[in-house]
């Protein structure tokens, strides 16, 4: 005859099962689109969003359709200019030549900051849609706050990239100390499917502003 499972052990199993079930339920709720349940509670955002953040929009719903390149012009106090230099192009080429290098990650730093400066994130899109429906509502205020925060964070990030890039340029090419950098973001759009054989990528330059540099050691990423 099989022995019954002791009460203490049963209690332990029950607690573990309940915790796992709660976690699974929160994960499901967090990952579902806006729905009536989400209007009743925000627990899923506080629990999953804070401790188990996840985003499975891998190239969805609309995948990226443009190359994002960062251009920087390093400027010294005495008026010397490096001219606009491509920060990302060389990293892309090196990554395409060999998939087992640090360039996969290195490239993402300038790319993601530049992308963040020119593109809205998902939560901002929700506010934008709300703002369109109710032009004087909370959505518009949220949208403008979110945009401001995103742009500030992206500019801080681009300044980090400019510090490292201009330090590398100084060490490897110019032997100058750079104080400022002028940034542009180049967006090259993939031609529409119907024009894939007849058109080339159209490029648009977006002004990234003048960034104030702080002394940074040369990391040897760009030569």
């Amino acid at each position, binding site marked *: 005859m099989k022995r019954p499972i002791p009460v203490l052990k049963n209690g332990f199993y029950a607690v573990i099962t309940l915790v796992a079930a709660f976690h699974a339920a929160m994960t499901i709720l967090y990952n579902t689109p806006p729905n009536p349940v989400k209007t009743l509670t925000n627990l899923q955002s506080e629990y999953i969003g804070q401790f188990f953040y996840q985003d499975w929009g*891998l190239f969805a719903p609309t995948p990226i359709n443009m*190359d994002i390149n960062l251009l920087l012009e390093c400027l010294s106090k005495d008026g010397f200019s490096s001219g606009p230099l491509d920060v990302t192009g060389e990293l892309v080429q090196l990554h395409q030549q060999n998939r087992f290098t640090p360039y*996969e990650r290195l490239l993402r730093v300038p790319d993601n900051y530049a992308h963040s400066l020119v593109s809205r994130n998902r939560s901002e899109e929700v506010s934008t849609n709300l703002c369109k429906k109710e032009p004087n509502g909370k959505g518009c205020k949220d949208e403008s706050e979110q945009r401001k925060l995103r742009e500030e964070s992206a500019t801080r990030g681009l300044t980090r990239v400019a510090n490292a890039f201009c330090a590398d340029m100084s060490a490897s090419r110019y032997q100058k100390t750079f104080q400022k950098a002028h940034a542009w973001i180049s967006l090259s759009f993939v031609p529409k499917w119907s024009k894939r054989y007849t058109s080339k990528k159209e490029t648009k330059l977006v002004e990234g502003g003048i960034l104030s540099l702080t002394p940074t050691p040369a990391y040897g990423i760009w030569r």
Partner: protein
Amino acid sequence: MNALIRTFETRAQNVIGSRILQIIAGLVVVYRFLTEVRFANFLFEMDPTSLLSSPLVVYASLAGWLIGGLALLTGFFTRAATLVVFLSYVVLESVTVTHDGGDNILRIVLLYMLFFHDKITKPNLIKPGALTFLHNVGVKMTVFQIVVLYLVSGTLKLQGDVWHNGTALYYITNVEQFSTNIGWIRSMFSNPILTTLATYATLAYQIGFSFMLNNRYHLIWVVLGIGFHLGIFVVMGLTTFSVVMIGLILFTVRDAEWKTIINIFVKHVTRPLERRLLKAQKLSVPSA
């Protein structure tokens, strides 16, 4: 209920898959340490005034990847190693913008891997009881998270126009950051038939994943999944993402299925090879 508990506490599930997942996780974090430590100052935003992003904590976390990763690879102190790698992931992911879906899923799954039995390197020593129960909870939660990933990713894609009209992969593969320098692969995605097939196959694979888990054709889905992620590695260059996803797909292969794979391998590879060797030996020994 009692029967379910007994099943859960009696036999550890996906033991081989769990060990493979530990090896893959170890491999990924050791690889990331080796390729990223030199550029840590650039890749990770360090701030000496903040405790969690101080250079000391960031470098300690990188060391955690190396030590924990090596332990996971070799199978020593796997539970402690999983904890070290998980904590390192939490710290390092919070100070970088370079993370991708592979890092996201690995960080979450590492938490569930803490429940894996510490004897999975020696399955014969696994005994029924609370540790086996916890192991199985970890296994089920890992499978659940993979299902969520594929289902959400697949259904989100269904909302996108270019996924609907079958051209999504043309656009992605023409973005330099996610493309290759191999000319024929690039031109492949300008072909209407291949692009449409590949785009819809991606959708079908991701949405179908959860429905194929307990299906008798699961192994076919596993092979397709490995091919799909190898394709992502070659074409798009998402190295660690592809390795992590292949590890997770292999994790879903049940122990009984591994036995089937081994039997097929023995029947079609090992035995014919043995027979050939024996034949060759007989031919080389001169008859008396």
